[in-house]
């Protein structure tokens, strides 16, 4: 099993990277929708 430190690290790294990417995709989609309206 992975250690607690590694699990915390994984959550932190994925939240910043993948979370950041998904957040930006959502932002871009909402900006596109606004422009269409």
């Amino acid at each position, binding site marked *: *099993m992975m250690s607690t430190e*590694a*699990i915390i*690290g994984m959550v932190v*790294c994925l939240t910043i990277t*993948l979370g*950041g*990417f998904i957040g930006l995709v959502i932002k*871009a989609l909402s900006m596109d929708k606004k422009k269409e309206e």
Partner: protein
Amino acid sequence: MAEKVEEFSSRWSIILASLGMAIGAGNLWRFPRIAGEYGGTFIILWMVFLLVWSIPLLMAELALGKHYQKGTLGSLGNLAGKKFNWMGVFITIVTLGIAFYYSVVTGWSLRYFILNTESLIGYLFGSGELNTKIGETDFMDTFWASLSNSSWVAVVCYVVTILAAIWVLSKGIKNGLEKVNKILIPTLFILLMVVSAFALNMEGGYQGLEYLFTIDVDKFSNPTIWIEAITDSAWSTGAAWGLMITIGSFSNKREDVTLNTFLGAFGNNTAALLAAMAILPAVFAMSATPEGAMAYLHEGSQALTFTVIPQLFAKMPGGPILSFIFFGAFLMAAFSSLLPMMQLLIKNLTDYTLTRKQAAFVAGASCFIIGFPSAYSLDVFKNQDWVWGLGLLVSGIFLAFLIIRYGPTKYKKDFIDESSDFTVANWYFKLMIYAIFIFGLFLVYWWMSQGYSEYPWFDAEGNWNVMDVYSNASIVTQWGIALVIAIVFNGWFYKKFVRK
């Protein structure tokens, strides 16, 4: 007759193009190796340096290309003015230097994809003999050694990839680059997720994640990790390559800069993390001990990808399927990065007087002729990788200098904020541009002082050591030639690409 000005059809096409440009071989062979060695501490710093080095430069480039609608020579020349136009020429030469040997990597990836296709067919419908051979250490070592040294197979493979790139790019932006990226990039992400899911389900695979994600606070005091993090971000995202200028030049004037840049940059890092989550668990699961896995990672990028990974995959149940998917992803990543590099040359040539088809032909022929020595000799390839890889840091310094000269806040207002959906703070952009200039100087000094060559400047007989693969003499000589060309023909480049 002038050809119709081409444009990407939407924001998403620009983002896919920037993802295709940034996600390349480095994401799959360098990042997992370095991340496995330094763990979560490196990843945190690598994320920080995305904001410090890569994003400010990428924003600046995308905005510049969009503003002037010209290639690197025209756009950078307009920013620099006649006095410093040579800096833009140098940046262009550095990226072309990379494009010429990078086409060889794409050729290798094609050869490995073919090998793994043969292995998969044998595994599914035959005796699986080829897969058994791949699992033997000697077979892959010999295969790689013969492919990378004086191999006509390597030459044929790289010619095929160049022809494929010319074919795509001669069709134009909407019908060529845009259409191909719409297929390549989503498929690449899906393939990486599949390999990652496979690898994580292997017994012992979690150990790879343990190494990848453990944040050791004490390691923050190790300067090497900081340097590796900033360097990897600089090399991986394509910042200061001029490729974003090229992408920007095909961007509609109303298109956003800041959000699109952030999306491309974060997408690149996501792909790199996915690759690491695929490769490290596989390497750790198939190694007898964690020390053995670390030894594999220390073998270097090319050895890890082209000898270690095929062997490891061949030994696991269903390995040929996984290996086929992995090398399919590798080929897509390499090809999607080669396209914008060749597009950079094509755009500059069409800015001159050539039609798109003529420019595509000239770009392909240049790639073939100048890239040939790298395809034929691994030492030449390694030398070119080292010389122009470090040259990118100089490109970053030059770009930062030109922005500082123009005024970072004014640059942001005039170019970046023109039509951005959201804007970054003025202090952030200004501070980062100054930091890039200073960090860039330090990084060039650092990498040249690492002593990768036994005789960095002069050989044992006291001769200028220009023929050594990793010598500083070789770096300085080739940069010097590029600078001489840029300075001697400064006026000509300015007249033909800027004033025109």
